[in-house]
């Protein structure tokens, strides 16, 4: 059969690579002969060949002595596929077309293997193939593909580089844990692969960030779906630990990625993941020195960094399309009717099941609230640059008023969510941290609340404590505001009735 013929040719390729070095001219000749002699001269032959070779390689893995070389065939296949990507004459189809032919074949064989009943799927050969793609591509792309002698080809490959990673990334998305749970651990290993993750972080113009965020969100959604707040299965707990370690790595190597994408990460983070939340929000720009947040004489006004707006990468408009106009109009001219419109649009049509601390479902749309709060922060930042600090650091300003009124007129849940989003903005020294500290401090003591004051104070304190009672890191902004509250002469937290009522909270606060 044709399949058997393909097996034979592929086996010859595997044997060739055991006798000559990978960049030997005979490997190119072999591929050329495959084309010339009609093995790979048509697209559907390419599809059939790769399918046969991959099935054979997986079979070979399963049959090999586990203490010996199990990946010989898979390694050879990886090299062939990427070599074809580099050396072929791409006149009739593009490199993207070629990869978009190859990946569905891989997906087909992969999903068939995964879904096979009565056998235990083994993710390792599938992992190895993808890891090899990354290796082979990395080997050729060094120093802008300088190893490629032909100048025209070199430029084509350089232009294709970002697309390579984005196509690879899309394939990973289709193989995500929710779809293929038997591949979960291999998948997490792949998104954090040393030849994928740092490259995606550092592609020119942050070209890899969007797809990388999609993958990280896939991971968070998987964790969220299967994290029951009181009992997390062992396997999910291990996935979580791996995810945490990956985020720590990103925070070390490229904190800007976490800083600029924090909104979407917060939108998708499981609500009980307090430590991971802190890790993400504690990312600080490289080389920034943090003033001591526990210094009671700290003056935010005097910190130059507090005048700078933090960068944002995401597109807020998407979250926020129906509300942007009413919010912007309110910020220009506050009005009650606009406020009502805004508030009513924050409520969901259906309850959202959410494993939270103290709650099991939400009726307010978290993402919209967060978008409103961040939008206010961004507008504060721009006005601050244009005008003066008194225009924005002003409890009469529309920025403060909007948030105040959302809390004043909203349900307890809306109050909680608005304050939570504000507390999330307390990060490293920047104008958002500075302004939201101002806003929260004023709200904590404002007489304008009337008899709502205690409720608002309790929710603010809850949101702050939520972030401080967990193991480190803690964000600079939260440490600053907490220090201010503890050392303030006008507030004694221990005297607040809701603190007195809870000895555990009182005992926590009094030594501080």
């Amino acid at each position: 059969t044709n399949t058997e013929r393909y097996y034979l040719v592929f086996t010859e390729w595997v044997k060739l690579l055991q006798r000559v070095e990978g960049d030997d001219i005979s490997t190119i000749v072999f591929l050329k002969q495959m084309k010339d002699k009609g093995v790979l001269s048509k697209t559907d032959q390419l599809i059939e060949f790769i399918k046969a070779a991959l099935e054979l390689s997986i079979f070979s893995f399963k049959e090999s002595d586990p203490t010996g070389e199990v990946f010989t065939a898979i390694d050879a296949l990886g090299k062939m596929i990427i070599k074809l990507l580099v050396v072929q004459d791409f006149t009739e189809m593009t490199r993207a077309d070629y990869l978009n032919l190859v990946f569905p074949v891989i997906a087909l064989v992969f999903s068939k293997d995964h879904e096979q009943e009565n056998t235990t799927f083994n993710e390792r050969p599938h992992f190895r193939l993808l890891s090899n793609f990354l290796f082979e591509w990395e080997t050729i792309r060094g120093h802008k593909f300088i190893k490629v002698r032909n100048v025209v080809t070199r430029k084509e490959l350089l232009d294709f580089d970002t697309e390579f990673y984005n196509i690879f990334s899309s394939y990973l998305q289709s193989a995500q844990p929710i779809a293929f749970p038997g591949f979960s651990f291999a998948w997490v290993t792949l998104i954090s692969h040393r030849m994928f993750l740092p490259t995606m972080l550092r592609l020119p113009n942050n070209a890899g960030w969007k797809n990388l965020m999609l993958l990280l969100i896939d991971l968070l959604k998987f964790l969220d779906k299967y994290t029951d707040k009181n009992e997390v299965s062992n396997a999910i707990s291990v996935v979580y630990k791996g995810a945490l370690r990956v985020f720590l790595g990103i925070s070390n190597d490229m904190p800007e990625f976490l800083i600029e994408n924090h909104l979407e990460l917060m939108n998708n983070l499981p609500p009980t993941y307090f430590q991971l939340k802190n890790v993400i929000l504690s990312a600080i720009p490289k080389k920034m020195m943090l003033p001591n947040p526990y210094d009671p004489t700290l003056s935010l006004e005097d910190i130059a960094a507090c005048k700078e707006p933090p960068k944002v990468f995401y597109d807020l408009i998407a979250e926020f399309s129906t509300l942007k106009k009413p919010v912007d109009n309110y910020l220009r001219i506050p009005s009650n009717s606009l406020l009502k419109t805004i508030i009513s649009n924050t409520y969901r049509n259906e309850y959202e099941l959410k494993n939270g601390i103290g709650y099991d479902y939400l009726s307010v749309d978290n993402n919209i609230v967060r978008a409103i709060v961040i939008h206010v922060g961004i507008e504060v930042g721009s006005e601050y640059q244009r005008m003066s600090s008194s225009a924005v650091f002003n409890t009469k300003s529309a920025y403060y008023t909007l948030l105040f009124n959302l809390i004043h007129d909203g349900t307890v849940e809306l109050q909680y969510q608005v304050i939570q989003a504000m507390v999330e903005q307390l990060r490293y020294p920047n104008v958002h941290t500075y302004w939201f500290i101002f806003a929260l401090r004023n709200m904590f003591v404002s007489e304008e609340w009337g008899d709502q004051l205690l409720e608002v104070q309790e929710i603010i304190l809850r949101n702050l404590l939520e972030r401080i009672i967990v193991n480190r890191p803690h964000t600079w902004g939260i440490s600053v505001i907490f220090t201010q509250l503890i050392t303030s002469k006008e507030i004694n937290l221990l005297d607040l009735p809701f603190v007195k009522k809870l000895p555990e909270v009182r005992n926590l606060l009094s030594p501080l």
Partner: protein
Amino acid sequence: FGLKALVPLIKQEERETASLYDHSITLGADLSSMLHSLGIPRDSKRHRVLDTFQSPWAETSRSEVEPKFFIPDSFTNIPQVLQSQTTPPCFNSVQHDQQRVALFQDETLFYLFYKHPGTVIQELTYLELRKRNWRYHKTLKAWLTKDPKMEPVVSSDGLSERGSYVFFDPQRWEKCQREFLLFYNAIM
């Protein structure tokens, strides 16, 4: 949404409330050992860690992985490396390659000895090191030579001597001087 909801997190000792939430995820844990396993920081400095990231879990990170590297063309196919007529160099004959090996420094010999087990070159480097008065210790799997400054004291039964020797440590890649009780049947 109030403070009461946080009480189970604060009051961990009480079994009833403690099981309400999975603390390893909510309160988390001390991250110092995780950071340390990642190499953050390393040598008191901040280094990139993702380029040599072995695996998301410490348990599956038990070996180093080859990071990306680039070999310029000028570094390949260099003629006459290791006194070799062929490029890349090869050592296939104990008889014919002895003279080439005699020209190598001690450290090159050690490198070749440890790097190519079960080959002609391992045999050749063994012979050459012996000519230079190094002896191979069978149990330590390390090479040693007499420290010229001290004369060893031979034991009464003639089976060993105690003295000062220079060892080559293949882990630290350096020579080091040690006092040692040397059994003659342990060396070759």
